[in-house]
């Protein structure tokens, strides 16, 4: 399972790293975003969505209220999903996330690790960790088979 680790020193660097990640995320992909509140998950998604030309950096905002944000790019649709408020598999079912998983879709799921299903099915896992005020350690794990 190849893993690469990056250290960013500012939100701008985290966005830039997200942008570079877009090139390696060939759809369809299910990506788990791990990291506690404030680790920089939305910041990273700003870069990824921008990298796919699906949204401008400043227009990517937290999906917590609406749970699913959709950013349509010329080639790839990016879905930013936040399961912070979703607590049981039954609630998860009502979201209908399976319907989003099209051939040109990249699903970026926050707090997906709460559900074993996503841990099993995920293609990529990105873990963000706060190490100091502005530094973030970003670990990207990709399954070799995918």
């Amino acid at each position, binding site marked *: 399972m190849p893993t690469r680790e990056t250290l960013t020193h500012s939100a701008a660097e985290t966005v830039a790293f997200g942008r570079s990640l877009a090139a390696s995320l060939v759809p369809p992909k299910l990506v788990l975003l791990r990291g*506690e*509140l*404030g680790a920089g998950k*939305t*910041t990273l998604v700003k870069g990824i969505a921008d990298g796919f030309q699906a949204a*401008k*950096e*400043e227009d990517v*905002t*937290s999906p*917590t*209220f*609406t*749970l*699913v*944000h*959709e950013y349509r790019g010329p080639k790839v649709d990016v879905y930013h999903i936040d399961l*912070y*408020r*979703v*607590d049981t598999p039954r*609630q998860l079912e*009502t*979201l*209908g996330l399976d319907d989003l998983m099209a051939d040109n879709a990249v699903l970026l799921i926050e707090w997906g690790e709460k559900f074993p299903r996503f841990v099993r099915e995920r293609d990529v896992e990105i873990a963000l960790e706060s190490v100091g005020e502005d530094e973030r350690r970003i670990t990207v794990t990709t399954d070799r088979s995918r």
Partner: protein
Amino acid sequence: MPDAYILGIESSCDETAAAVVRSGEQVISNVVFSQIATHAQYGGVVPELASREHLRAIVPVVRKALDDAKRTYQSVDALAVTQGPGLPGALLVGISYAKALAFALDKPLIAVNHLEGHIHAVLLEEKQKGNREMRFPVLALVVSGGHTHLYLAEERERGWTYQNIGHTRDDAAGEAFDKVAKLLGMGYPGGPVIDKLSKFGEPHAVKFPMPQIKHRDRREQGQPEPEGPRFDFSYSGIKTSVLRYVEKNQLQAAIAARRRKLAAIAKPSVEEYRAACEQSTLDLVASFQRTMVRDLVEKTLAAARECDVATVFVTGGVAANNELRQTFEQEAARQGLPVYFPSRQLSTDNAAMIAAAAYPKFLVQDFAPADFSAEAGMRLV
């Protein structure tokens, strides 16, 4: 201008609402069916649940709005419905119903942007009060669980025009309230609880830094030059600060105990909430609210000065917050700027504001094409 009775329908998030408004200036009826009780157990709005609840509520809610207005389906002049932004499934329920009804009745249908609706909630009530002194341009802060937007609004010959001059870069202000409430074991929705508890705490007890937002030059990426200065917000950092405070002061056990205690009470009263909080938590909550309110007020008034507007509107669910209202009133008065809020009833989502926003479009026959659909990420321009 001819009188027009418009039936408004709103289903963008967690309320199913219908209303009849006369000529954008008088609320004849206003019915709101809230799903908050349904969603409370999930700690937020769950989209599929929302659509199902809308489906169940929409027919009786519209019927009640007409009954309350003593109108029949036939005796309204037009229908108006929220097109977006909102939850796609939830929006579709309102749109499909409104389309079918408009087609069956052979009435024009007007599509309204939800954010525009919030702005018109203020105009509607001021007109209803007989306020003819309103001066333009207006700067409107639309602030709720899903939005924190600043718009310059002006009435032109062919209806209203809006220019977005700021929005949140990450979390909406109402979302920060909800997340902090959840973090502290206080349930959903978080805004009203925090507002009520804040007056029992010391607002200077905890210092939260608010970030200075750098406004990147949008030309970098070959985009056209922005039309003017931007006034963006950011409320992701303060939520992280509250989390750090909880960790540093080892409040986790107390929070878990509070969550259990409150879960056992069906509808906790303010006193019961207060009894479940130590003084340090009340201080934390008061400090958090003060920081949020200060930031919203300062940024909005800075934008008002910079854009030289004549009037400020504060609207959306968070506009129901008492401290926000008081602080806006004090600070705006100091700058000699009139500031208007909707009543609490029209601050949160409702259909009267949709029917009111539809009236100027009705006058210029700006009707929705038959094939229009929900636009979850709809912008207001």
